[in-house]
C-alpha cells in the first residue's frame, strides 16, 4: 500500500500534493488560460500527430503506460497497474489493469475496453482515417494484416495480453504516445467515431462529446481557431492527483510576440512556448521561464552526398561525398555562438545524432568549432574554386523548436562557411511549399533541418528521421550509404530487449560519428513561460506536460 502511494506520487510528480515536498498548499479552483502554439486538428487523439492536438490530448486521455512527468524516456504505468511482463522472446506483453477507473461518460475501464481501442485502430480504413492516424501505422508497420500486432486479448476483466509477430524493441516506449490513449467504447460507438469522410465526423470535429478518456480533465467545447475548453473531471481515478483548477482554456496563438505580451498583460496565464530570444525579457518582467530540462530534438545542417535529379535522371555525387569536406564544414561552424545569439542559450551542442536523454544514446566525439582547422581541412580536400561555390538552403515561414530563427541561423552559418573558404549562396523555400519535400526527396545539397522526437528512442532519430534505408537504398535526403550501419539498425529494431537494442544502437552511432554525414548543431529545450499566479507546473523537453498539478493563486 505504501509502495502504491509512493508510486502514485512518482507517477504524477506533484510536488505540492505529495506530503514529502513543498511548504505551500495547493489551492483549488480557478480558470487557467493557456496560450497554445496553434489550433488542434481533430478532437479524436487517435487521429492526430501534431503537437497542438497532442498537448491538449495529454490532459484528457491516458494510455496503459506513460512517461514520468518531466522526463522524456522513463516509462511508468498509468492505466496499467504496473509495467507489463514480457515473454523471453520479446513478443508477448501482459498488462494488469488498474481497477476503479472511470471514463468521462461514467462507464468503467476494463480489459475489453482496451482491446476495443487497439482493435479499432488496427481496423482503420485506407483514406481519411489512415491518412490522419499516422502513429499506429508508423509504430506497427501498417494496419490490419500488415500490423506487427498479432492479437490483443482480454483473458479477464483486468488483464490485457498483446502478442507481436516479431519482437519490437521500441514497443513500450512508443505506447506512451497520447494517440494510444484509451477512449470509452460506449462513446466511440454512440458517436460513430469511425465515420468517414471526417467532414461528417462530429466526434473528430469536437462538435459534441469528444475525446472521452480517463484523464483528470474532460473535454467541454472546441470553437475552432478561438479556444478549446476542458473542465475538471470529478470522478478521476487518481484522487490524490486530481486537478486543482476548474477549467483550462487553450487559446491558439501562433505569434510569439503576441504570446509574450499576452503573458505580460495577464491576458493569458501560461504560454506553451515563447521565443528563445524573449527569455531575458520574460524574466525581467516577473514571468517564470519554464526550463524544460531534457531536450528531445535535434537541429542539424543536412549534407547530401548524392543529389537527386528533379527530372528523374541519375543522381549526381556532391562535394559532400568527400569526408574531409564534411569535417571542414563541421569545424567551421561556431555552434555555441549560434546557441547564444539565436537560441537565447536554451540549447546544447549535440554529442551524438540524438539528445542525451534518449534511450540508446551514446556520447560520441563530434568535431567542434575550429576555424583554422576547417580552413586547412578544406584546403587539403582539393576542391576547385568552382566547387567551393555552394548553395545553403533554409526554410521560410516556419519556426521549429530546434530552429527558432532559420533565416538568421542560415546567415550565421554562411558567415562561418565563408570564413572557412566557401563561397555561399543562400536559398530559401516555403516550409510547406516545397522545402520539406525537396529536402526529403534529396533535391537540396546543404540544408537546415531538424527532428522533434516522436518518442525518445534511438530508433526514432537514427532510423526514422535520419539514415534508415528504404527500399534497400540509403535515405535520399542525405545519400549516406553505410550498409553495416543499416544492418545494425535492423538488428536493434527487432532486439528482444531494450538493453540488447541499446548496445546495437551504440555501435551504429560509432559508425556514424566516424563519417560525420550531417552536422548536428543543437539539442534545444524550447522555453515556455507563466505568470507569478501559476504554481506546480512541470515542464518536459518533449512538451508532454500535465496540468492536473497546476494551481492558481
Amino acid at each position, binding site marked *: 500500500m505504501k509502495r502504491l502511494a509512493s508510486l502514485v506520487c512518482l507517477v504524477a510528480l506533484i510536488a505540492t500534493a505529495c506530503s514529502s515536498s513543498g511548504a505551500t498548499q495547493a489551492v483549488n479552483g480557478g480558470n487557467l488560460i493557456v496560450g497554445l502554439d496553434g489550433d488542434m486538428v481533430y478532437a479524436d487523439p487517435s487521429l492526430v500527430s501534431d503537437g497542438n492536438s497532442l498537448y491538449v490530448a495529454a490532459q484528457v486521455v491516458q494510455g496503459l503506460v506513460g512517461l514520468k512527468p518531466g522526463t522524456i524516456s522513463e516509462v511508468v504505468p498509468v492505466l496499467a497497474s504496473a509495467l507489463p511482463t514480457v515473454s523471453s522472446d520479446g513478443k508477448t506483453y501482459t498488462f494488469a489493469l488498474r481497477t476503479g477507473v472511470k471514463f468521462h461518460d461514467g462507464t468503467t475501464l476494463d480489459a475489453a475496453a482496451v482491446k476495443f481501442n487497439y482493435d479499432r485502430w488496427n481496423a482503420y480504413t485506407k483514406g481519411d482515417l489512415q491518412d490522419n492516424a499516422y502513429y499506429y501505422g508508423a509504430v506497427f508497420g501498417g494496419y490490419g494484416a500488415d500490423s506487427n500486432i498479432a492479437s490483443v486479448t482480454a483473458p479477464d476483466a483486468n488483464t490485457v495480453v498483446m502478442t507481436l509477430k516479431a519482437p519490437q524493441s521500441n514497443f513500450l516506449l512508443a505506447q506512451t504516445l497520447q494517440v494510444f490513449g484509451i477512449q470509452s467504447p460506449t462513446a466511440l460507438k454512440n458517436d460513430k467515431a469511425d465515420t468517414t469522410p471526417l467532414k461528417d465526423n462530429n466526434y473528430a470535429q469536437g462538435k459534441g462529446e469528444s475525446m472521452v478518456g480517463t484523464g483528470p480533465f474532460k473535454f467541454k467545447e472546441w470553437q475552432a481557431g478561438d479556444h478549446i475548453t476542458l473542465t475538471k473531471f470529478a470522478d478521476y481515478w487518481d484522487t490524490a492527483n486530481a486537478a486543482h483548477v476548474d477549467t483550462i482554456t487553450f487559446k491558439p496563438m501562433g505569434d510569439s510576440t503576441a504570446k509574450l505580451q499576452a503573458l505580460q498583460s495577464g491576458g493569458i496565464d501560461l504560454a506553451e512556448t515563447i521565443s528563445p530570444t524573449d527569455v531575458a525579457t520574460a524574466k525581467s518582467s516577473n514571468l517564470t521561464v519554464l526550463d524544460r530540462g531534457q531536450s528531445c530534438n535535434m537541429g542539424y545542417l543536412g549534407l547530401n552526398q548524392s543529389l537527386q535529379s528533379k527530372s528523374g535522371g541519375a543522381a549526381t555525387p556532391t562535394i559532400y561525398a568527400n569526408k574531409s569536406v564534411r569535417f571542414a564544414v563541421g569545424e567551421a561552424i561556431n555552434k555555441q*555562438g549560434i546557441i*547564444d545569439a539565436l537560441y537565447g542559450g536554451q540549447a546544447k551542442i549535440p554529442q551524438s545524432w540524438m539528445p542525451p536523454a534518449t534511450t540508446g544514446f551514446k556520447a560520441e566525439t563530434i568535431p567542434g568549432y575550429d576555424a583554422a582547422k576547417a580552413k586547412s581541412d578544406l584546403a587539403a580536400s582539393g576542391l576547385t574554386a568552382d566547387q567551393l561555390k555552394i548553395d545553403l538552403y533554409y526554410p*521560410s515561414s516556419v519556426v521549429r523548436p530546434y530552429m527558432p530563427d532559420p533565416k538568421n541561423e542560415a*546567415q*550565421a552559418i554562411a558567415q*562561418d562557411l565563408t570564413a572557412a573558404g566557401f563561397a555561399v549562396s543562400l*536559398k530559401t523555400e516555403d516550409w510547406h511549399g516545397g522545402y520539406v519535400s525537396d529536402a526529403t526527396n534529396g533535391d537540396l545539397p546543404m540544408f537546415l533541418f531538424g527532428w522533434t522526437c516522436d518518442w525518445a528512442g534511438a530508433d526514432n532519430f537514427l532510423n526514422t528521421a535520419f539514415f534508415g534505408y528504404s527500399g534497400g537504398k540509403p535515405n535520399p535526403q542525405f545519400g549516406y550509404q553505410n550498409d553495416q550501419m543499416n544492418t545494425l539498425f535492423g538488428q536493434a529494431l527487432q532486439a528482444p530487449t531494450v538493453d540488447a537494442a541499446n548496445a546495437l544502437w551504440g555501435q551504429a552511432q560509432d559508425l556514424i560519428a566516424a563519417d560525420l554525414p550531417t552536422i548536428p548543431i543543437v539539442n534545444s529545450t524550447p522555453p515556455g513561460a507563466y505568470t507569478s499566479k501559476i504554481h506546480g507546473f512541470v515542464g518536459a523537453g518533449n512538451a508532454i506536460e500535465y496540468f492536473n498539478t497546476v494551481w492558481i493563486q
Partner: protein
Amino acid sequence: MAVQAPAVVVRAAPRASRGLWRDALRRLLRNGPAMLGLLFIAIFVAAAILAPLISPYDPTVGVIGEAKHGPSLQHLMGTDSVGRDEYSRVLFGARISLTVGSVAVLTGLVFGCLVGALAGGAGGIVDTILMRVVDVLLAVPGILLAIGIVAWLGQGQLQIVLAVGISYAPIFARLLRGSLLALRESDYVMAARSMGASPARVLLRHMLPNALTPLIVQATLAAATAIIDVAGLGFLGLGPGDPRVAEWGEMLTGSAGFLQNAPYLIFFPGAAIVISAIGFNLLGDGLREALDPRLKR
C-alpha cells in the same frame, strides 16, 4: 447609354498650355514643405550613393559573438541578430529600398494608367469590362495578388518589385478612370471636343493632366507601403533571396519580434522608411499644387 460612373474630382478649369512647366517649377521651388521633402530624399539618395565610402563596416558580414549589442560608439545603431553593424546596413539599405519603392510605384502607375485611361477614355462596354476586372483584382488582398504574380513570374528581386507594383495598379486604374469620367462631362472638355479635337488629343492634352491629383496623392503614399510590401513577400519566403543584402523593409520585418529586447533594430530601419515616406509625400504634395494652376496664391 453608358453607365455614367461616379465623379471623383469634379472641376472645370481649363489648362494653360505654354509656360506651364516653368510656372510649375517656380511654384515648386517656392514651396517650403516640398523642398524639405526633397531634402529628405536627397539625403537618402546621397547615403545610397556614398554608402561604400561612409559605411564603417561591411554590411553583409558580422561576428556572431557580437549579436544584438545596443547602440554604442563602435556601432552607432547597434548590431543585428548575427552581429552585423546596423548603421552600415541602414546606409546600404537605402540603395535597394529607394529603388524598390520607386520602381514598384512606377510599375503600378504605368499599368494602372493604361487601364484607367482606356476605361475612362473609351467608356461604354470597354469601361464596364475593365472596371469589373479591376474590382475583382481589388477584392483579392494585395499581398495575395503579389504572391500569385511571383508564382507566375518566378522568384527574384525584379519579379517581386514588379509583382508589388502590379498589385497597386487596380487602385490607380480606378482612381484615374473616376476622374476621367467626371472630366468627360465637364464644360471645357466638351468645348474641346466640339472644336474638333481628336479623342486621343482630348484625352492626353485636356483630361489626363487634370486627372492626376488623386493619382499623385495615392502614388506618393504607395511609395512607402511598397517598401514594406516587398519585405512582406520576403517574409513569406518569396523574397529576393539573399537576406545578407541590406534592405530596410526586410530589416524591419525581420526584427518584428524584438520590440522589447532590441528595439533599436526596429527603430532605425523604421525611421528610415518613415522619413523617406514623409519626403516622398511632401514632395508629392508640392508637385500636385505646383501643377494645379488654380492654386496660385
